[in-house]
């Protein structure tokens, strides 16, 4: 016995790696996640591409499909971080899956790191497929300068961080796992309609633009346009600028708000009395 008791606990890194593999299995084996979270932006990119064809925006040579590609990348990040995490965590809490995890020696930090790693990997695969579709079907030219890829990297990471933090926070605020999807889907749809994902942002009534500017999706989509659309398109934006500093501020603010609420409200059990 004593010889066995001196064996070391599994390392934190191996726990995170194992947790990430498990999360990926759970994501890819779930039909709902694969259709409504993973494939959703691709389906809509192709659908809109088919409907609007090669129509160009104003007097630019940017096609609607190219404009939507940036929006679909943005909404993919929101789907995978916010929508998927909020719904799956609510259901897992409702069905005592979280309580079961809490009963094991798995540290909470390893659990969440594994989950975030899964979100990052799924998002990267999603974006890679969207870009491939863009290049093959809609004549999108991938950026060649490092500056644009740097913009892509920080917008992607900040967007994922904000989406995931708000997603985890939202899961604690939802009382019922079964209702999570019914409550969150219209919210995400509203943001998609008003943030320059399904419609060109500048063609929306200005009061809707103002509402959308409060939420992260508008900034994510604009950030992605700054990466994948020609430089001159900047003048076509609502403010005539890509607004990178403001994008960083808004995404960071949502990340911090989400994180504070998530840490303060997270529960492993349906009802917590501690």
């Amino acid at each position, binding site marked *: 016995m004593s010889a*066995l*008791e001196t*064996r*070391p*606990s*599994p390392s934190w890194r*191996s*726990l995170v790696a*194992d947790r990430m593999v*498990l999360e990926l*299995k*759970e994501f890819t*084996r*779930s039909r709902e996640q694969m259709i409504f979270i993973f494939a959703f932006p691709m389906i809509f990119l192709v659908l809109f591409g088919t409907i609007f064809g090669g129509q160009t925006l104003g007097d630019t040579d940017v096609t609607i499909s190219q404009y939507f590609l940036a929006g679909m990348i943005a909404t993919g990040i929101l789907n995978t971080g916010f929508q998927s995490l909020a719904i799956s965590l609510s*259901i897992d809490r409702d*069905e*005592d*899956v979280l*309580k*079961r995890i*809490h*009963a*094991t*020696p*798995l*540290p909470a930090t390893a659990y969440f790191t594994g989950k975030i790693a899964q979100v990052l990997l799924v998002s990267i695969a999603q974006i890679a497929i969207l870009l491939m579709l863009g290049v093959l079907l809609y004549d999108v030219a991938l950026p060649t300068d490092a500056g644009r890829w740097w913009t892509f990297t920080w917008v992607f990471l900040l967007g994922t961080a904000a989406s995931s933090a708000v997603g985890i926070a939202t899961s604690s605020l939802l009382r019922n796992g079964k209702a999570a999807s019914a409550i969150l889907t219209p919210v995400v749809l509203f943001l998609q309609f008003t943030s320059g994902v399904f419609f060109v942002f500048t063609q929306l009534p200005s009061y809707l633009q103002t509402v959308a500017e409060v939420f992260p999706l508008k900034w994510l989509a604009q950030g992605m346009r700054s990466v994948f659309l020609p430089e001159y398109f900047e003048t076509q934006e609502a403010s005539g600028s890509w607004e990178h500093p403001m994008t960083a501020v808004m995404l960071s603010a949502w990340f911090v708000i989400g994180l504070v609420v998530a840490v303060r409200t997270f529960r*492993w*059990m349906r009802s917590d*009395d*501690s």
Partner: protein
Amino acid sequence: MGMNDEAIQVTSLRKTYGDKHAVDGIDLEVHRGEVFALLGPNGAGKSTAVEILGGFRKRTAGEVTVLGVDPAHPTRQWRERLGVMLQSTSARSVLTAREALQHAARLYPNPRDVDESLAAVGLTEKATAKPQLLSGGQRRRLEVALAVIGNPELVFLDEPTTGFDPEARRQFWTLIEALRDHGTTILLTTHYLDEADRLADRIGIIANGSMVALDTPEGLRSRATDAWVSWVEDGATRREPTPTPTAFLRDLLARHDGEIPRLQITHPSLEDVYLDLIGASQADLDAAADEEVAA
């Protein structure tokens, strides 16, 4: 040795929700290597007590030590020594039985062998099945395997056989006995008396948040002093309790000529003792409620 002799030590444990007392002053010691059953009707406070001991809920008052640690502050090292089987089962998992055990085993420093665990719970043939394809009993057996995959010193089993058919329950009991023979301390809750009788070294009976009895199954049985004598007289069944059935019978025989129809002497079962204890507790509660209304 000192406190290390006890796997669980509980003194005056209380848990209140508003003015409802879910657990109302429980004292309890579970020895190492012991199988202890918390028995009681639904809503008696069994699960609340186990959830406090398992580090899921905070207590309102009292002293609790589980494997030498206060479960209000669960640590990773403590969780490595503990196995928990919850009451509910989720069928939503997309992992096969073997995958679930493999992932669980990697959380512990000294896990059991996955295939041996599958064999121990009779799921070798279902190793590649997902939970949706397992029967209720098979899913619960997988849960036991998951609860003990880390080679725990102490296992909590919360109503492990609720909803089982009799055969599945018997198979399950054999499984628990194998665990006990392995030296694992087991705390189980149940509302099945025969389960507690068969498995437990000692039984604690909980009613309305209080421990109304704590004894060995034999000790509980011996609490019932009266035997019941029943017979049919003038077409009606009569049933009388008596501490001296032989004397009672002698009187009865003296009053009757010939055959006494349906004559029977029964000694109380553990169930009678249990129902008496639960009933007495309920009567106390009702009386208290009446007094409150009167006041």
